[in-house]
């Protein structure tokens, strides 16, 4: 058995009579390399480990839960976390809904999320990848002025979870990525573009692809000007679609719904989106960057249908939100590492792809705005009200093709209106970092604000 799972079980064995106890332990190693102008700017390598403990006690009016974490697996740190979690539990409001996850018989997916190539690749070889990315981007087009940074990073993390309710889970995941930020143009016309590639290990990474993305995305923005305000169809780049879906995912959290903080509340069974929209959360798809076998409470991750043919079918739940809503947990507890408590959330959103290629979507749209990247998502998009307003870099679409670049404009609508106004979904499914895969998507009736 894994040392980490054994450690988690030993912590669970320290539960007092009548006490529920859950231990979530994580241990990881990481390497981060940054290259600038052909040289290594920084090289970081480190390992870290920690544990999060939840303790649940039962009183006459319900259950009380307390949480504590430690950035260490040393016995003294674990002792203190147990002490603090127990002390904290006494102060929470008794609640019949809170509690630890109960094993529900769902079998975890047998998928491998770990690449051996992270260990078998030397640090020098990883440095070479970042240097190649820097060089290819800098020299790939004469209009590239400089490369701000070219990064390689990888991460291997093992997590173990055990509880007094019989939950046992162990998983190992690895990830590797390269990313590059390019600056094109001269002093009077500067444009930027980023490129990246993600995978389980260095073997999965295409340096060429990342370099080309950064070059294309910065160079095609040269000469960008502010466009006049207009109501038009916006075509979202796969990265932008992924960002949009991740905010919609927040509104599909069962916790947000049961607490009245989602515009989807009370709308189950209604047509909330265009009939072409089918959205699932499926962490069992191994290609998804955020794929996982266990959720943050140790239940098996599974496929959950959220919107089917435009109709709202369900939400994602952790144990507490599910009990509050009177439904079963969906294996959707998310956790921001050992220092985070579990909360309901979407982990690997997947919009069912359509049949059109990106070029065919542009042709079908005719006139509109191609949105290459967005800014201000955290300040201008609300998963509660649905209000949507973001800054945009992009290109006008004229006669069904990409035309002149535009910058310093916003596009706005509401998430509710945008879901119903989906005009086309591309066939170009792309797995991206973050909790949603992306593809080209066209949405009509967006307001562009500019000059």
């Amino acid at each position: 058995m894994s040392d980490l799972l054994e450690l988690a079980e030993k912590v669970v064995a320290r539960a007092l009579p009548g006490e529920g106890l859950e231990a979530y332990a994580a241990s990881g190693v990481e390497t981060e390399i940054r290259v600038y102008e052909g040289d290594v700017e920084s090289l970081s390598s480190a390992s870290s480990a920690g544990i999060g403990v939840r303790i649940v006690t039962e009183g006459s009016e319900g259950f009380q839960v307390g949480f504590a974490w430690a950035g260490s697996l040393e016995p003294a740190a674990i002792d203190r976390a147990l002490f603090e979690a127990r002390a904290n539990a006494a102060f929470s409001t008794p609640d019949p809904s809170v509690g630890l996850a109960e094993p529900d018989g769902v079998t975890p997916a047998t998928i491998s999320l770990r690449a051996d190539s992270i260990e078998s690749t030397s640090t020098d070889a990883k440095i070479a990848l970042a240097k190649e990315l820097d060089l290819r981007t800098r020299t790939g087009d004469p209009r590239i002025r400089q490369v701000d940074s070219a990064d390689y990073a990888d991460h291997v993390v093992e997590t173990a979870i055990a509880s007094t309710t019989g939950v046992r889970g162990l998983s190992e995941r690895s990830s590797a990525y390269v990313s590059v930020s390019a600056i094109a143009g001269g002093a009077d016309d500067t444009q930027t573009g980023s490129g990246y590639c993600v995978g389980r290990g260095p073997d999965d990474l295409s340096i060429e692809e990342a370099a080309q993305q950064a070059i294309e995305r910065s160079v095609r923005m040269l000469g960008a000007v502010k466009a006049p305000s207009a109501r038009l169809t916006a075509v979202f780049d796969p990265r932008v679609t992924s960002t949009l879906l991740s905010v919609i995912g927040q509104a599909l959290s069962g916790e947000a719904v049961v607490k009245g903080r989602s515009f989807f509340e009370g709308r189950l069974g209604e047509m909330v989106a265009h009939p072409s929209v089918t959205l699932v959360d499926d962490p069992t798809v191994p290609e998804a960057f955020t794929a996982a076998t266990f959720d943050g409470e140790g239940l098996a991750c599974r496929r959950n249908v959220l919107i089917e043919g435009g109709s709202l079918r369900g939400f994602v739940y952790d144990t507490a939100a599910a009990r509050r809503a009177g439904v079963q947990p969906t294996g959707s507890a998310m956790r921001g590492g050992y220092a985070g408590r579990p909360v309901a959330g979407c982990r690997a959103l997947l919009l069912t792809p359509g049949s059109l290629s990106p070029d065919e979507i542009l042709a079908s749209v005719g006139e509109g705005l191609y949105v290459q990247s967005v800014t201000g998502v955290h300040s201008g998009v609300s998963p509660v009200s649905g209000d949507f307003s973001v800054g945009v870099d992009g290109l006008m679409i004229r006669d069904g093709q990409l035309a002149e670049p535009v910058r310093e404009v916003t596009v706005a609508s509401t998430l509710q209106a945008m879901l119903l106004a989906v005009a086309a979904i591309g066939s170009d499914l792309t797995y991206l970092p973050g909790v949603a895969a992306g593809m080209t998507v066209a949405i009509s009736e967006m307001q562009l604000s500019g000059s």
Partner: protein
Amino acid sequence: MTEELLAPDVIDRVLAEAVSRGGQMAEIFCEDRTSRSALLDDGRVEELSSGQERGAGIRVIVGETTGFAHTADLSEAGLLEAARVAASVASDGGGTTTIVGLEPKRSYGARASVLHDEVPTADKLALLRQADEAARSASGSISQVQVSYGEGRRRILVASTEGTYASDDQVRSRFNVVAVALGDAGLQTGHESHARTEGFEMFDAIDVEELAKTAAGRAVAKLLARPAPSGEVPVVLAGGSGGVLFHEACGHGLEADHIVKDSSVYAGQLGELVASPLVTLVDDGTVAGEWGAYAVDDEGRPAQRNVLIENGVLTEYMWDWLRARKEGRSSSGNGRRETYQHLPMVRMTNTFLLAGDADPDEIVAQTPHGVYVAKLGGGQVNTATGDFVFGTNEAYLIEAGKITEPLRDANLIGNGPEVLRRIDAIADDFAMMPGTCGKDGQSVPVGCGQPTLRISGVTFGGTAA
């Protein structure tokens, strides 16, 4: 708490090991963090959380390359191992670096009159309940309330082969209310928060019920809001609504890491007029109690007050040790890192615009048509192009010089240098606001401040044509 994080003789041996293979500089950054938070949601104290973390990050500079390793093992053996890993970027063997003896330690105690550990947990939870009740009783439209309390203590120690030897003890408190209102047109949210680099005494100076009512009022006002305008309009930003405008419009662009890489629109602009002559912008880590304040930065350098823009002229950038060394100058005390697991970089502290002499009410009265932003949300900037966005959390139309109807939330977009030149009125009021600044994956607490001001034109990203 006077316990030393590391003994001086251990520091000496670890630094010697770190430069033994040929590095020009080595530094050890040691941190001990504890935090506690409590969340009241849906009327219940949902969960109290406590955390503790302790470790050290070691960096070794070899030429233009930084080697970095961190460890949670603060034993001498653990630190020596981290030193060897960090030093692995140097391969020529044979250390030639002169290790300067450690300076007399500059040690700063906790600047808190009431440490959190001295306060019963029940007193902290009472604040949550008071705020919850106040928000709910503010209006029948309030349908949900979330209140969070947070406290943290961060003790750091920095020592380097250049003689730096300093420690700091940073105590922080925060309180945040998010109210949701339900109306015929759906849900709206309102936020209000308060955060200071001080102990529990923060709550002597604020009324959490008022804070909660403010958050609730914002949510309720937006229930009747009309769609925000689309296109360029004059905008009046209320004092303290968020110096986030300056944080994004020029603050990030004045960080020296962007300057030395020529990836900022403000590179090469020292001595140039980059803003309206009304603008004097300061970054000041020494403002006692402010959310972005500290005694020494995460490179052991004392915080200082830096005037960045004076009467519209760019006077200075912000520097950390590494970028200052490249330019043969000294750091401005802006080297920060989120935790011991991160490399330091140039960060803002408390960034604010100095007050002018106009009357805030007069500024509104002299604006025939525009938007009044009472509260800003967050923002984001592309430092290379200068384009930035910032969101509204409470905004109203200005019609015939009067504040009238509420508007739904939207982002505004502008270009830093252009917007700074369009500031045509600055009032004599002033307020600060706490925020969390994210850069390159690291989050640090920062303060933002400004008086009421007007921008003659900026693009509002609403849906109303």
